[in-house]
């Protein structure tokens, strides 16, 4: 059960964390000597060599020419409330906010479906491995899982590229949709999106699957030692019932929290995979921003992604307390 008091406490906690992320975003460029945003503007970063419009906006809206940090901080917060994250150097005259919002749906598609597929199939694999605990199959697949979970995500993507897009050209090597094509109907559009998203999503799912599978396996092995399992077996219940209704059902809830906590990894993985497949999401944009020293865009991406992960984490937490009747928090 969930009480209003618990909810409020969690909410305050989440707001403090969000405020922390916002403040880190303010402090970071300013603790580095010689404000890189301004220096870079005059040194030609992002192709905006002293562009008077950009300078005027940065000085006016963010007070970057005023050395008083408190003044800058209050301006920063005011602008943030209005959704103003500054202006992108590279995508000038687009604002950082509009650049990010344009690309965010692609990242959400990738990260969302990748997580769902990986968590769903990972939990099933975990159930299987826990049930076969101690067999050669279990130790083999557990080892493979441990190995995959420490390999960088993008490496798995590179291997998939070679296997399915270069050797045998089944899937496209880049982009989210075929460039320069007009679609006859919504279905061919959706089909093209899925066709392009298939390899990136598969890469993410394959990289994440072992993490959830191992978590599920280990939790279920612990559950299988509990007394009620012996009772269930002694009652003569069929194996499938003992396995799914008793062991798996009790193990799956802690794994839900893990899904929430791993969102940071998911995002990191999605960002790298987008760059690999030139997929036009936030991750690819982040790479472009780094290559072109577009600091406002980099920081905007950090802030938006952090706030989204913080919010998602909060939701998973609340969902968990609803799902598990044993959790009684005040």
């Amino acid at each position, binding site marked *: 059960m969930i009480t209003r008091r618990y909810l409020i406490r969690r909410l305050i*906690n989440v707001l*403090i*964390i969000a405020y*922390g*992320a916002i403040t*880190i975003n303010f402090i*970071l*460029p300013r603790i*580095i000597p010689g404000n*890189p945003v301004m220096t870079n503007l005059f040194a030609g970063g992002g192709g905006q060599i002293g562009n008077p419009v950009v300078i005027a906006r940065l000085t006016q809206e963010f007070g970057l020419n005023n050395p008083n940090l408190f003044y800058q901080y209050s301006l920063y917060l005011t602008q943030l409330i209005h959704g103003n994250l500054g202006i992108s150097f590279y995508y000038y005259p687009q604002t950082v906010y509009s650049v990010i919002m344009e690309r965010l749906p692609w990242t959400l598609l990738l990260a969302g479906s990748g997580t769902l597929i990986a968590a769903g199939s990972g939990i099933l694999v975990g159930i299987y491995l826990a049930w076969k605990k101690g067999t050669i199959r279990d130790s083999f697949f557990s*080892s493979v899982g*441990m*190995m*995959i*979970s*420490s*390999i*960088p995500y*993008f*490496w*798995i993507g*590179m*291997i998939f*590229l*070679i296997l399915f*897009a*270069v*050797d045998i050209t089944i899937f496209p*090597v880049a982009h989210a949709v075929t460039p320069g094509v007009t679609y006859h109907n919504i279905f061919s559009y959706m089909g093209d999106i899925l066709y392009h998203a298939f390899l990136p999503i598969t890469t993410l799912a394959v990289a994440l699957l072992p993490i959830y599978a191992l978590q599920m396996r280990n939790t279920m092995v612990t559950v299988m030692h509990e007394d009620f399992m012996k009772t269930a077996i002694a009652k003569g219940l069929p194996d499938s019932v003992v396995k799914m209704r008793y062991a798996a059902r009790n193990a799956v809830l802690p794994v839900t929290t893990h899904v929430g*906590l791993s*969102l*940071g990894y998911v*995002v*990191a993985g999605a*960002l*790298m995979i987008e*760059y*690999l497949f030139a997929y036009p999401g936030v991750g690819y944009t*982040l*790479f472009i921003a*780094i*290559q072109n*020293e577009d*600091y406002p865009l*980099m*920081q905007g*991406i*950090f802030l938006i*992604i*952090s706030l989204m*992960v*913080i919010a998602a*984490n909060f939701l998973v937490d609340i969902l968990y307390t609803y799902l598990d009747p044993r959790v009684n928090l005040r």
Partner: protein
Amino acid sequence: MNNGRVDIALQENNAIIASRAKRVTVALFKSKRTTFGVAVLAFFLILAILGRFIAPYNPLIQSGPLWSPPSESHLFGTNYLGQDVLSWFIIGTATSLWVGVSVAFFSALIGVSVGLTAGYFGKYTDEVLMRFVDMLLVIPAFPLLVILSAYLPPTTNSTILILSVLSWPFMSRVVRSQVLSLKERGFVTASKLAGESRLKIMFKDILPNMLPIIFINIIYLVIGAIVAQAGLAFFGLGNINSINWGTMLYWAQIEDAAIQNAWWWIIPPGLAIGILGLGLNMLANGISDMILLNQGR
């Protein structure tokens, strides 16, 4: 008289430490998992230390035709500049391991200090420190790493600094929860009653009892740092001109190795990270099983 007694006590102490070291070594090689872990670790350490003597070519010099697949003279083939991939891989091992080990060292230092302080002093100290730790755990690390690397000079040391500053929170949580349970134990109460100082209790009574768990988390830190460094290098952050597993993948991506079907350039660094990760994970799991067995006894 008194000195003699101290000497005997010291000798006994040394004997205990020696027999413990022997016991740990024997235990490590008793289980297949930990033996495998130690073997993998030893293999890569040797590669890292002796790399300069083992590498068949100078990795920065063209030593064969461009993009040539594995052959007798180039076991791992060559890259887009005709440089020997095997030599890149062997020399790169040192930097990758160095980043992993130093990051693990520094973040363990921060994490253990914060965890000890929070757990032992409790109350507001604990509350404030753990709120901060929670914040760092929830904020996604990768975008933050990216921003920090973009602002700092692109050197390997910057990468080590950035990774150390962001990798410690989990360690501090583990240490804190250990301290919370250990400080209620009898021997700590005994030291308190004997009038020992807080510092002495923290470092003489509590810390030694957590060493195995700290060691396990150091293992996770090492592999985490190696993977994170590879990720940053892949994005072109840090020193892209240094030779390591991450920069191998960076140049492979920049020069379209996947499209060129140059699998021999891509497979070694990724597979090495995977095998090292597997070995270290097995070592950590084996040790944590040993701890559980000890507690059961």
